[in-house]
């Protein structure tokens, strides 16, 4: 029996390949996700281990955040170097808001990747490694010189000796140092650019000229361990500094990054799951068709004495082989996919070029487990059905299987839909743990439920299209419609695979466009300024820009917003500083005059929800820390939390911010014009100020709204690209179903050709059938997607997603695209069918 089923499998290599396609794609997505995130993690690990010294002295607690603004006095460095077991100590300065502008005037990197700047020291990193090595030229030895990482220099078109255009958020917004050397990083920089200054110039740029550092690396002497050195250094430190060994600092940093990368892993795995669900549909469908086609063969097995179980097992063995082949090829394709995802992320700034792909054993295991389990599960039902073939079927000409009644199937589908809807409602509206899981399970439940009922639900749609076909295409149209209806399950399963992808894409389209509409509405309501000067990549820029802006004729008010991470109580929080006197003129902040007065006197303004959450009321004291010394801020009052109105949940006045060591750079500068000022003239004057600073731009309301929409559009593009794979699988499903149907209907096709159906008519018949399936899937998908999108928007209406906007044009475009997909999917099966020799076809069994 085993040999028989393997032989039958090998005899039909095409069939084998076609049923493996779905497995291959599903597994590829899982493997690709793992490979990509492992690669991502490894490339960070590489950087981390050489980005610490043997012992790192740093502001206490700063290991948790990037870019703490507290500094270390330069006098301490000499003391640390003298500690027992210390070979040397080097102070480091790191800044993440320094960008290089290429010779063409284009900003290098950006779009989320940090622009790193460090000072040059020749002190080694932990365990005598080095973060950078010199590739050409020399390290900066005097002010006015820099070194650049090789990729940035190459992208910018800079060679040693060139003047480089560097943009910083420091008091000097633009600097033009000479490139003295080019460095190579020991690991991938993940898209970041690196500028190396002399220590003196870094201090003057970033630390206001103080002899200070962000952290200090202490290098051990031979024979001293990291831990021994740490113990020797610790007593020398003031209370607000801490010493950690390089190994533990690197590990902690790596863990932290792994933790934040988990999001990407989960994100990708969700899409892998979608791909697998869609793939499962295709596999179930493929095996069902294959079993139907092999009825006589299977019945013959039964007639010559094979038991039900043996017949069922033979189908499962076939599934096992298909799963094995699918997993193997899928793993290979997954590597290709990981490269593609790498490129996709590279396109949005997370550049991993140079990072080698990591194929962990776990990835291989997952690929095979997923491939085999999914295939075997998908083949189980068809296999059971195969076992029920009566032996007598071998002797009959027209073998049909009685399938379980549609009635039960529809009931099960309805129940599943209801359950899914309930889970969705719970996740969105009720206070349940892990609401995302509820929402996900709910959506899956509804999708599967509708897929089960789709043979019935889809019928009116097919019949409706059939009426149009009949009119337009005559008997070819009639036959196409009848073919789509003759196996309602097959049509429905094929369409359902497409439905899932389209539903998710439509859901994201509805949600994305609602989000943009909500943001626009908020901006329209809250944005009272005439112009906003801001940094397109969300980092800060030099205060010199605001100074220049204030000098422009026609500018009445300049209101600055500063921001950064700082401590509130025990936690790290995003804190912003506003000017209480002017902020109200440029934006809407729903609060009392008294609170604003308190804010001006050094208070902390909270959004109402946060105040309730923390149990804080006006007059309470909160311990805060920016850089510099901790200070107690008095709660000035609360403001009503509506999205878009305030830059952070915690607001200080700019005065308080500056006095307590907040970073002296602006995040946003709002501009309001004098009455009667020529807005266009002022606008071009402002543009001139920021002309040399590619990171900074001037926007009016429309421009601001557009900029806010940009990351959403970008996110949507990524999600579309990833969901696109599910759609590709679904398309392959249509091709598969059609191709198998062509095989099944070989005699019929032969007959049609014999009585005069031309090849073109035959192809158009299949094309019409394919279009019906595609449109059915797309229509159901769009309807469900709109429902999901609306549900999510409604549930989040209080959290800023106040406006529902359904992108009808886009949704109609999805359906039309599905029609085109249908046309394309029929090309190959159509060609195969047209190639059939009439006599062979008629004579075939």
């Amino acid at each position: 029996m085993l040999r028989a089923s393997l032989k039958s499998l090998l005899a039909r290599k095409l069939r084998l390949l076609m049923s493996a396609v779905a497995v291959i794609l599903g597994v590829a997505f899982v493997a690709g996700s793992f490979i990509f995130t492992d690669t991502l993690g490894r490339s960070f690990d590489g950087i981390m281990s050489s980005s610490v010294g043997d012992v790192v002295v740093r502001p206490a607690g700063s290991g948790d955040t990037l870019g703490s603004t507290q500094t270390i006095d330069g006098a301490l460095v000499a003391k640390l170097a003298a500690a027992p077991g210390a070979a040397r100590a080097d102070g480091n300065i790191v800044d993440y808001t320094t960008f290089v502008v290429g010779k063409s005037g284009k900003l290098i990197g950006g779009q989320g990747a940090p622009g790193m700047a460090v000072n040059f020291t020749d002190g080694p990193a932990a365990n005598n490694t080095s973060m950078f090595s010199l590739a050409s030229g020399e390290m900066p030895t005097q002010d006015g010189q820099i070194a650049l990482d090789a990729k940035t220099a190459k992208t910018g078109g800079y060679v040693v000796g060139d003047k480089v255009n560097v943009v910083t958020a420091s008091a000097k917004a633009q600097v033009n140092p000479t490139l003295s050397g080019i460095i190579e990083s020991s690991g991938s920089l993940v898209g970041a650019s690196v500028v190396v200054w002399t220590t003196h110039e870094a201090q003057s740029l970033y630390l206001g000229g103080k002899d200070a550092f962000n952290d200090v690396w202490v290098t051990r002497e031979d024979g001293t361990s990291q831990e021994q050195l740490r113990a020797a250094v610790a007593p020398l430190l003031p209370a607000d500094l801490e010493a950690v060994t390089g190994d533990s600092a690197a590990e902690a940093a790596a863990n932290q990054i792994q933790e934040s990368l988990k999001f990407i892993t989960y994100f990708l795995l969700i899409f892998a799951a979608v791909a697998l669900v869609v793939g499962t549909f295709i596999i179930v469908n493929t095996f069902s068709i294959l079993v139907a086609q092999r009825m006589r063969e299977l019945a013959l097995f039964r007639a010559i004495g094979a038991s039900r179980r043996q017949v069922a097992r033979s189908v499962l063995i076939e599934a096992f082989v298909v799963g094995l082949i699918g997993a193997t090829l899928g793993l290979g394709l997954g590597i290709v996919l990981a490269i593609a995802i790498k490129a996709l992320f590279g396109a949005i700034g997370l550049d991993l070029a140079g990072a080698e792909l990591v194929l962990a054993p776990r990835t291989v295991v997952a690929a095979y487990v997923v491939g085999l389990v999914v295939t075997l599960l998908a083949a189980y039902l068809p296999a059971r059905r195969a076992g029920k073939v009566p032996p007598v079927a071998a002797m009959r000409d027209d073998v049909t299987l009685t399938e379980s009644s549609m009635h039960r199937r529809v009931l099960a589908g309805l129940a599943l839909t209801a359950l899914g809807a309930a889970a969705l409602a719970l996740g969105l509206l009720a206070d349940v743990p892990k609401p995302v899981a509820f929402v996900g399970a709910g959506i899956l439940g509804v999708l599967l439920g509708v897929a089960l009922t789709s043979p019935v639900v889809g019928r009116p749609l097919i019949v409706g299209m059939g009426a149009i076909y009949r009119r337009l295409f005559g008997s070819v149209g009639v036959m196409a419609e009848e073919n789509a209806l003759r196996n309602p399950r097959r049509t429905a399963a094929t369409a359902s695979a497409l439905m899932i992808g389209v539903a998710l894409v439509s859901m994201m389209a509805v949600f994305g466009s609602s989000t943009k509409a909500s943001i626009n509405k908020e901006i329209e309501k809250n944005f009272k300024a005439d112009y906003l000067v801001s940094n397109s990549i969300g980092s800060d820029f030099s205060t010199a820009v605001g100074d220049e802006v204030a000098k422009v004729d026609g500018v009445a008010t300049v209101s600055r917003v500063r921001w950064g991470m700082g401590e509130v109580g025990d936690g790290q929080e995003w804190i912003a500083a506003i000017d209480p006197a002017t902020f109200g003129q440029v934006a809407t902040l729903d609060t009392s005059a008294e609170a604003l007065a308190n804010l001006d006197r050094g208070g902390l303004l909270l959004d109402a929800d946060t105040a309730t959450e923390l149990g804080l009321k006006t007059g309470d004291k909160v311990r805060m820390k920016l850089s510099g010394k901790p200070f107690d801020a008095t709660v000035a009052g609360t403001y009503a939390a509506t999205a878009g109105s305030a830059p952070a949940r915690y607001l200080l006045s700019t005065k308080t911010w500056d006095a307590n060591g907040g970073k002296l750079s602006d995040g946003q500068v709002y501009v309001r014009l004098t009455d009667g000022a020529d807005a266009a003239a002022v606008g071009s004057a402002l543009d001139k100020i920021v002309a040399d600073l590619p990171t900074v731009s001037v926007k009016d309301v429309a421009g601001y709204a557009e900029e806010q929409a940009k990351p959403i559009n970008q996110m949507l593009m990524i999600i579309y690209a990833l969901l696109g794979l599910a759609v590709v699988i679904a398309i392959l499903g249509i091709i598969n179903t059609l191709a198998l149907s062509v095989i099944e209907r070989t005699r019929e096709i032969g007959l049609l050709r014999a009585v005069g159906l031309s090849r073109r008519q035959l192809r158009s018949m299949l094309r019409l059938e394919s279009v019906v399936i595609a449109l059915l899937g797309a229509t159901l998908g769009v309807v469900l997607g709109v429902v999901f999108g609306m549900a999510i928007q409604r549930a989040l209406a209080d959290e800023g997603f106040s406006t529902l906007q359904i992108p009808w044009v886009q949704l109609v475009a999805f359906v039309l695209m599905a029609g085109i997909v249908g046309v394309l999917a029929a090309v190959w099966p159509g060609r195969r069918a047209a190639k059939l020799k009439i006599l062979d076809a008629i004579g075939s069994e």
Partner: protein
Amino acid sequence: MMSAAPSPPTTFEVAARTEGLTKIYGKGDAQVVALGGVSVDIHAHEFTAIMGPSGSGKSTLMHCAAGLDEATSGKVFLGDVEITGLKENDLTRLRRDRIGFIFQAFNLIPTLTAKENILLPLSIAGREPDPEWFARVIDTVGLSERLGHRPTELSGGQQQRVACARALVSRPAIIFADEPTGNLDSKSSREVLEFLRRSVTEFGQTIVMVTHDPSAASYTDRVLFLADGRVVDELREPTAETVLERMGRLDGARGV
């Protein structure tokens, strides 16, 4: 078109003919000569049977004559048109407009009703049926009650009669029937053969039928006997007995 049987003519109008038709399958040692230079005329308005033992080439002859299979050499004419060498699209049109087919089994598209099946060649061509002719054909076939049924709801005999009606409804120049009664019981066979006979007698249709059943051949005007890829004998006004006798002679001659 003539509506009554022509009186026995001395010279025949030719509906189709072959000239030195040769069909060879395979190459080298595996080469099989299915037809070894067959030249034969098919008379118009006659019911012709092609008979012969298995492997005699009778089906191949019909397939080549109908443009379903390509001849290795020789010529095939349908009326005055040489079909050997015609392009695929022209052949398709020819089959659609000038030829009717009845196969042994699987003659009907399962998703279409009897009526839709009958009208299929016309609707593929985008032509409207002549309602009078359609009514007459349906009436002759005796299927007016069952036009709305699908093939699975019809008996084997009824299915074959639907196939006959389909072949007839477009008034083709010639109908090729490949063992049309091969799968039927004797009663159904008789119905189908009587119908074919009538369509020749009453409508002047030209029909060529491949069969190995002497009693089926007895319904025809003329029987061509094939053996080893050649026409070896011919019989006019056959009866089951004369056909059987000729076949016995043939077998004897071949030493079987």
